[in-house]
């Protein structure tokens, strides 16, 4: 009886001493803020510092004690970055690599995903399980033979070395297959009965329905290919074909202490994705969980 009363009075104006209410009296805000505020600052302050430092003068950076806010704004870091490196070219290379990777992923993964989800053909099961098995192959096993393979194919020191590994992935194919399996079959069957071939059905009926999954796939491919370090690092040594990530790592050896330049490079390499993320955040996190749980 009492339990029932307590439950119906839930949150409204409970006569029973409710725990959250008791706490609310101690603090003017939820105690969770005490945990979340410092954590949030810990996560975001280094990035803020990165941006601020990129606009500092060398004198400001070397000042003791170190300071967070620049005394005067300077774009010297960006200027020397432009003069001393081919950063714009690297940015262009990264954009090209990411664009090709996304197109490759969208086309190849959706085609293969649809094939494995809906079509019946000999070798389908074997093909699919081979694909799943490739997920277990770790990157360190692939570095050496892939490099040798690329050099025999003449891909070393070309942008292709950076985007060929990103044209498609078992993960992407699996993601698309799971999505296509979740679609109702009736629409496709109707299209087939109306005389649409498999490809026509795929392009006219299925793809328009797959926009959320395709967007998720594009986000993941963008993140992966934009931030990829390993493939361009091992296969590209010609400065003209560096991606941003490889280019950044070369600064460390030669310009260790030019922090304004290092941070300016960092800003160029991370801000496009960070701004995109903040603008499209809700949807971004949704696609993150969408794939995370289905992986």
């Amino acid at each position, binding site marked *: 009886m009492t339990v029932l009363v307590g439950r119906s009075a839930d949150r409204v104006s409970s006569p029973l001493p409710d725990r959250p209410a008791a706490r609310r009296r101690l603090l003017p805000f939820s105690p969770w803020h005490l945990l979340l505020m410092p954590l949030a600052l810990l996560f975001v302050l280094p990035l803020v510092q990165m941006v601020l430092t990129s606009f500092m003068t060398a004198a400001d950076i070397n000042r003791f004690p170190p300071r967070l806010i620049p005394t005067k704004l300077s774009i010297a870091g960006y200027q020397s970055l432009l003069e001393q490196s081919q950063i714009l070219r690297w940015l262009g290379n990264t954009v090209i690599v990411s664009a090709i990777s996304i197109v490759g992923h969208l086309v190849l993964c959706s085609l293969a995903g649809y094939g494995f989800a809906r079509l*019946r053909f000999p070798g389908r099961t074997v093909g699919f399980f081979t694909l799943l098995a490739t997920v277990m192959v770790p990157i360190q096993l692939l570095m050496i033979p892939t490099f040798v393979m690329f050099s025999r194919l003449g891909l070393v020191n070309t942008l292709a070395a950076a985007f060929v590994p990103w044209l498609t992935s078992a993960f992407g194919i699996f993601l698309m297959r799971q999505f296509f399996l979740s679609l109702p079959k009736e629409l496709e069957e109707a299209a087939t009965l109306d005389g649409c071939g498999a490809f026509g059905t795929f392009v006219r009926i299925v793809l328009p329905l797959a926009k959320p999954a395709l967007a998720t796939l594009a986000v993941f491919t963008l993140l992966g290919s934009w931030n990829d370090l390993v493939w361009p690092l091992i296969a590209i040594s010609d400065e003209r074909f560096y991606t941003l990530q490889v280019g950044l790592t070369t600064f460390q050896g030669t310009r260790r202490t030019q922090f304004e330049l290092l941070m300016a490079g960092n800003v160029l390499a991370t801000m496009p994705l960070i701004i995109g993320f903040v603008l499209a955040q809700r949807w971004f996190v949704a696609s993150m969980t969408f794939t995370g749980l289905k992986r």
Partner: protein
Amino acid sequence: MVTNEIGRATTHAGPPTRRHRAPVAPSGAERGRPAQRWPRRRRLAANAVTGWAFAGPGTLLVVGLSIFPAVWAFLISRTRWNGIAPPRDLGWSNYQRMADDPELWASVRHTFVLTALFVPSSILLGLVIAIALSQKIRLITFYRTCIFVPFVASAAATGILASYVFNPQFGSANELLRLVGLPPQLFLEDPKQVLVVICVIALWGEVGFTAVIYLAALQDIPKDLIEAATVDGANRLQVFRHVTLPELRPVTVFTAVWQTITALQLFDLVFTTTRGGPLNASQTVVYYVYELAFQTQRYGYGSAVAYGLFALTMVLTIAMILYSRRARVEAF
């Protein structure tokens, strides 16, 4: 199988669509075998062509960039090869050599230390953050954005930023220590601290992902379960301990396996912060493979070490999955 499929399609489609089908299929249609117009073999061939036209390019590329090189790596691992001169067959001796390579065992130890630090802390921190972020309080969108943003930054940028923040002379980490009255540290330049610092940096970048996974799992817990427990007189802590935590178990297994693989294969961060230093104190196995192959051109031995790490990863992953099976957690 093919006739089954089509048979099922007709029953699903119902009478109006069967009329559409009538001109295509001859008299056999009523008995559920409409597609007898083509001989079976030709139909199979047509199916194969269509199917592989869809699935072929993607599958071929994935296999060509993973299974094929993995098998090749095994062949390479049984040779001495620098990539230029013809490879010399060595049998299993590259693998035997691994047993008494102190540098390899040091990197295995570093990898284990990193994994042991990283996996539990990323799970714990991810869970705590997810619980905090699932509260319905003000500013929650702001908090979510802040905690997730580092996940978007690349390992290269993170490494460079970390080298700045943890720079013993100019870095803000030491400034922070000074403000609380603690002595300054060498961080990445101290062989004793370097693994812990790399783990902290990895957590900074990766924990957002764990938190998002847990957040989604928390939202998936049926509300009536928690209500039922509350009705039965459980307090918040008891609800968490006996309802929430057990419901989260499959996700925890998933996260543990995922983060273990991440930690065992850590390369980018090591490359962009310390390049294995100081005094090789942060050299992980994957970094060692990279060095063997691309600094000293020892492709054969490098491939053998890579296979060694592969075996280790497999054993650990399978052990974790078997353990979760025994504990009746259905995660895979």
